[in-house]
């Protein structure tokens, strides 16, 4: 392997309002290597890549490209400097044809010669074995083909650095192999490839080096042979393999009556968002968790339970009685609450006051024609602001001006106020400070001891171990295991997530 660095990033910093997305991150890419960039959700991988490609301006640090210091102003600038990118979300225009998408923004001259573009696009598609026609509208193609087209576009650019940000999540086995062959070809030509993925097998199949990020900070750079799989997982999750002390908090598991009628039971629940039908039940006072890497279907499963997406089939029983949950209001009326994964998109109602955000769910359950009096609403808000010690200037402050942790507490307050039997918390601790994380976990245990059933999802496995008495492990939209009791330890969980192989 040649050892000259084609890309060097030193001390990269990026701040978003209230969040340090990247802090002093170094990254080195050598000529002709495939370099995996790893880290859990929110670790800063995508941010690092967007800084590199000029989508976000960086707040600190230097970038050198083949030894020359560069300043990348825009995605176009990055393209011109020889950085080609395939983003995680498909960033093509669905209304244009395949060929247009492959060549737009990178042809010279004011006119375009469609015959030439279509034929060269066709040739490239054939070469890569992509089953799409150049003149087909991109929006009509499957997501996998769209992703392949994005890859074809990037590959066709005469680039020094190729960035693949989770390109394989929508590809099947065969397509992935095709992509890997392509990557190996490019590698032989001396192109440096940055490969971001959540699939560990893929990393070990094609990559030479791994850089691990966590919470916006660099954990380290490793040669692939020196970093066994389980260690990689532990690095990503932030627990050193050696000192994984058993911090299990077995909170009165004995008290839970596993033989009784479950509070919530789903049989063969089928969603429409790409998860396989699954069975699930939860008992009074139990805290369970769904785990698995991003994209494994853990969020989709709980959304199906809440009726957030269209449910295609299956039976649902609440306290043993069969009920129909078609939309969120049905679930709420049956005592289920759901704190969504994406706080900004699905959780907060940004411009509304903290008070309105707190009472929203209970208000909706009470009905359109029965608004709470102002005094009542203030009382509720006061109570929960105190209970969860939410830091806000006043009840009237718009929620969007609060910090992430306090926003999350407000959403939590909203659902606690609704007084559910069964509370689903999807990543309640993501993107918030450590203190609040601990508070939320304590609250979860307290609620469970009061007899509520809780599903708790977190990317941080030790949080799950601390709070949950049972873990449902998912991979590729399927439930692949259920762990409880003594099996609830880092090693076992990681092994199950990673796919059976341990160390």
């Amino acid at each position, binding site marked *: 392997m040649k050892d000259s660095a084609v890309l060097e990033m030193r001390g990269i910093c990026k701040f978003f309002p209230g969040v340090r997305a990247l802090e002093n991150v170094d990254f080195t890419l050598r000529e002709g290597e495939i370099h995996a960039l790893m880290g859990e959700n929110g670790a800063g991988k995508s941010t690092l890549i967007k800084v590199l490609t000029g989508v976000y301006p960086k707040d600190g640090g230097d970038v050198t490209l083949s030894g020359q210091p560069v300043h990348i102003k825009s995605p176009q600038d990055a393209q011109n400097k020889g950085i080609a990118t395939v983003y995680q979300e498909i960033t093509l225009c669905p209304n244009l044809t395949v060929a247009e998408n492959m060549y737009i923004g990178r042809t010279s001259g004011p006119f375009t010669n469609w015959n030439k573009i279509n034929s060269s696009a066709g040739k490239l598609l054939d070469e890569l074995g992509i089953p799409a026609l150049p003149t087909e509208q991109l929006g009509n193609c499957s997501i996998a083909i769209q992703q392949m087209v994005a890859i074809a576009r990037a590959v066709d650019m005469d680039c020094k650095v190729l960035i693949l940000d989770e390109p394989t999540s929508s590809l099947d086995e065969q397509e992935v192999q095709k992509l890997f062959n392509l990557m190996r070809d490019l590698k032989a030509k001396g192109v440096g490839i940055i490969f971001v993925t959540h699939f560990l097998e893929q990393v070990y199949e094609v990559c030479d080096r791994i850089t691990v990020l966590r919470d916006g900070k660099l954990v380290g750079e490793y040669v692939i042979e020196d970093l066994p799989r389980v260690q990689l997982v532990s690095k990503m999750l932030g627990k050193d393999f050696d000192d994984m002390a058993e911090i299990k908090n077995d909170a009165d598991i004995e008290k839970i009556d596993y033989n009784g009628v479950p509070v919530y039971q789903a049989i063969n629940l089928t969603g429409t968002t790409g998860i396989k039908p699954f069975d699930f039940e939860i008992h009074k006072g139990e805290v369970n968790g769904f785990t698995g890497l991003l994209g494994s279907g853990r969020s989709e499963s709980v959304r199906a339970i809440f009726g957030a997406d269209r449910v295609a089939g299956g039976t649902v029983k609440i306290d043993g009685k069969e009920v129909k949950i078609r939309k969120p209001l049905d679930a709420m009326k049956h005592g289920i609450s759901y704190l969504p994964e994406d706080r900004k998109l699905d959780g*907060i109602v940004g411009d509304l006051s903290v008070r309105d955000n707190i009472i929203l769910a209970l208000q909706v359950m009470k009905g359109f024609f029965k608004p709470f009096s102002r005094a009542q609403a203030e009382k509720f808000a006061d109570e929960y602001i105190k209970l969860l010690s939410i830091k806000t200037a006043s009840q009237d402050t718009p929620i969007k001006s609060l910090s992430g942790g306090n926003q999350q507490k407000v959403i939590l307050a909203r659902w606690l106020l609704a007084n559910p039997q069964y509370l689903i918390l999807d990543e309640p601790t993501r993107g918030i400070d450590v203190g609040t994380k601990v508070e939320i976990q304590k609250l979860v245990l307290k609620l469970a001891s009061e007899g509520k059933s809780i599903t708790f999802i977190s990317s941080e496995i030790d949080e799950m171990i601390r709070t949950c008495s049972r873990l449902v492990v998912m991979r590729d939209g399927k439930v692949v295991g259920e762990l409880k009791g003594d099996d609830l330890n880092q090693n076992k969980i990681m092994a199950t997530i990673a796919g059976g192989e341990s160390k």
Partner: protein
Amino acid sequence: MTTDTKVQSKGSAGEFFGKIIRNQLFIPIVALTLLVIFNLISDPGFFKIALEPSSTGNLILSGNLITIIDNASELVILAIGMTLVTSASGGQDISVGATIAIAGSTVLRIVKGYAPDIPGSQFAGMIIVSFLLCVVVSALFGAFNGALVAFFKIQPMVATLILFTAGRSIAAWINNNDNISINDKRFGYFGNFIPGIPVPTPVFITIFCIIVIALVLKFTNLRLYSQSVGINASSSRLNGINPKMIKLLTFVILGVCVAVCGFIKVSRTSSITYSVIANNIEMDAILAVALGGNNLGGGKFNLTSSVLGAYVIQFLTTTLYKFKEIDSSSISAYKAVVVILLIIISSPFVRKLIEDFKNKREAAKAEAAVGKEKA
């Protein structure tokens, strides 16, 4: 110590000032004040109100101020509905002028069938029937717009373009394009004066509408729901709200507002001109919402502010009319200047500039404080 307190008081004064500026009522109130001052200077007699006998011999109040308040009635009522639609759907209804024509035409269709000078009780019954029918028809047209927006996900402006195009023709069709004028004087009471009462009737109707909507907002969750839907539809859905129904509902409410406006409009003249009635009122109504400081992209709204905005626009129009050399239709050029100023003031771009400026000042202050400490 003393300097410290000084700085603090200055800060709180600045904060107080900032609060006023940030208040939604700020822009319409300032605009209103400017107009009042301008008129006082150019014509000290502008605000004179007199109690004079009218052409029919009743004692009525007259004066510019009364004219403004009277003429603004339809605009105010429309602004209420438009504000709700804007809040929930993040777009505006441009068909209101045309649907006012439909509503007015519906009323006349019923009323024209009656012989003039029918007895009082029969007259009252006729008015109630015609008004109710007009409300139903307008609400249905509102629901049509709302359904296109909510269920077919067509942008409000485009969806309402259909009725904008066809509405006046439908109005004409309802009455077979006849020129109708109602001879019964009592029909004109609702748009002009009721004998013995010196204040124009539309003013009372407007006040009634404002009270009704205030009660609706107090006794239902309309405000919370439509704001939530307008700000974050996905989040609202996960909280059990049905965003589609809320959008539809706001359009139906606007339809009812339109019905009231149409009724007042035809009562004013006891007749209808299909192509001219309530011409361009949609633009004024949208402007009133914007002038009230409401975000045209949906979300939070302030009805008081919109209502005030509507009065300001009518004030502006009347003021411009006062200048004899200005032709009535060139008023829009001056309105355009107001609109442009407004959008510039309320744009995210300018807000960002102000925020940057504030941040810089704060940073400078902090730096100065650090410097002081060191010294």
